[in-house]
């Protein structure tokens, strides 16, 4: 048996998964990095993005590409607005206390998930890809849309990196992340920065959901796996670190793809959840603890 086509296929699938995972995980990492908030509802923002993309595709007449572009714009805006409102009305009011925040985001998880069930019903929804063009390899044809998602994901990550490093907004975010009190003393509107960061984090998950939905059906329970894998990536890669998150996303995306192909998806998930727990227990430095502050 020739192994090359299998490896190529697993590698390509892993790359596609890794790029979507990278977007989702960076959103989670940004929120934790700046706000020290563990957002358990992050996967539901991903799910909301996917379902909005389906609704755009289903209700906007014309070619699928039009609905797709609409979804790519509407989903992050709607989800971002929702996250912004949630931060203002819930998280800010409890002063971001760690236990309270995690309990509240669990509450958001249930509300979003069950809200999606009420609105869209329990059925899985398929979405047409905006374009069908098959790239030929010597052994199999591969969807060009999937490679397009990889390109979009990397472009968005580059945009985030530029935003964080080169813009005024990014400077405010980094200052808040570095030292909240001092940032406040220098007149940085920390409350607004927090809301913006929470919204941006959610928007990244929503875009990832839009990108993934032509490959995978939209469903109200689809948020669980991305949440779990994002946790893995964020904790293994180091929180708040963009390069670490990217590296970990590629590593986890590829190895999860390989493990799922050669063993079973459930076993792959068991391994990754245990990995998160053990990393946090035995190697928390640079992962969850910031010097002088208890995470």
């Amino acid at each position, binding site marked *: 048996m020739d192994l090359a086509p299998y490896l190529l296929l697993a590698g390509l699938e892993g790359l596609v998964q890794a790029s979507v995972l990278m977007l989702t995980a960076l959103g989670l990492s940004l929120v934790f990095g700046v706000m*020290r908030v*563990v957002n358990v509802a992050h996967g539901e923002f991903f799910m909301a993005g996917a379902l909005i993309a389906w609704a755009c595709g289903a209700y906007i007449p014309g070619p699928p590409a039009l609905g797709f572009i609409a979804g790519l714009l509407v989903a992050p805006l709607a989800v971002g607005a929702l996250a912004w409102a949630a931060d203002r009305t*819930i998280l800010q*009011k*409890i002063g971001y206390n*760690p*236990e*309270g925040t*995690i*309990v*509240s985001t*669990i*509450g*958001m*998880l*249930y*509300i*979003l*998930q*069950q*809200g999606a*069930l*009420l609105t869209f019903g*329990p059925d899985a929804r398929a979405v047409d890809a905006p374009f069908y063009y098959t790239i030929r390899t010597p052994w199999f044809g591969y969807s060009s849309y999937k490679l397009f998602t990889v390109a979009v994901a990397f472009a968005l990550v580059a945009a985030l990196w530029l935003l964080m490093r080169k813009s005024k907004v990014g400077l405010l975010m980094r200052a808040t992340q570095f030292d909240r009190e001092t940032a406040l003393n220098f007149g940085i509107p920390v409350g607004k920065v927090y809301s913006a960061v929470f919204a941006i984090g959610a928007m990244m998950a929503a875009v990832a959901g839009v990108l993934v939905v032509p490959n995978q059906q939209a469903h109200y329970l689809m948020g669980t796996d991305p949440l*779990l894998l994002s*946790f893995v990536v964020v*904790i293994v890669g180091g929180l708040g670190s963009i390069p670490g998150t990217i590296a970990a996303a590629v590593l986890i995306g590829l190895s999860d793809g390989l493990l799922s192909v050669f063993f*079973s998806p*459930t*076993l792959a*998930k*068991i391994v990754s*959840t*245990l990995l*998160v*727990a053990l990393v*946090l*227990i*035995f190697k*928390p430095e640079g992962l*969850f603890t910031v010097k002088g502050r*208890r*995470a």
Partner: protein
Amino acid sequence: MSLDTTQAPPETGRGSPARLIHNGRLFALVLATIAGLFALQFVLSDYLVLAVTRILIMAVFAMGYNMLMGYTGLLSLGHAMFFGAGLYAAGLSSYYWGTSLPVSFLIGILASLAFSFVIGLLALRTQGVSFMIVTLMFAQAAYLATLYFSRVTGGDQGLTLPTDARSFSLFGAAMDMTSDTVRFNLALAIFAAVLVAMYFVTQGPLGRLFAAVRENEPRTQMLGFDTYRVRLAAFTISGTISGLAGALYGLVFGYIGSAFAGFHYSIEALLFTLVGGPGTLLGPLLGTAVMTMLIDRLSGITTAYLMIVGVILILVNRWFPKGILGTIRERALPWLK
């Protein structure tokens, strides 16, 4: 439960002689609650007696959770793994080895004791947010393991215990798990035993030590206590009681399945405790009763009834963080703890 209260720590400083009952009014309330619950079976319809049976068992689970979250201040997001450990250890030994019900129950308790001790050893090396995520991840791995080994566990479909595993004889009297009255009184007896045991643990010296760790861990350390061991004790007791509840649930209702080890059950324990009042002895019972009744009603109206779980988690957290009994304790009855 024989807790050595004769060696009450001298630092109580009240000069009072060491007493076995530290909080008389609360103990009276505990006994009154048990008596009231016993009387319910003569008043309620069959359907409600069954509902109360389930509430009693889930309240034991929530009481175990409260030991850690309410009294010791450690928020776990993975207590379903202990509930599941008790459920599976008891249910599987009954299913595959045909052990009698009391033996299966004991196996369930011992398995969750061992399991929670080992998980505690590992998870308690972390604190705060990390602790929550570590417990969440261990629980998720445990849940996935019940699916992965579905040839043994039955996975999502679960296993129904065979008929001969549904009864046992107690001093010559046959106890049949398909009878509503037997189930109710058995659940009540075990609930009462756990409640009284919890009373002695939480109101005695050990309970004060748990509260000391919750309020100020460095100071407790400075007073010469090994706080890691205190937290480990709280974690193990908490996990074992949760596992006991799981074993009881599986044996009384004759069904074991993966869902019982899932994320939702961890959140139910948290929700029940939060609503009733964390760090109060009777809070978990009240929270379980209120929430179970509410969810029961809502599930008749809509399929998305779990949304209310989310709404209540957020509302309680924002406006009502001490829960029902915690608020009453703060306003009027300071002995209600």
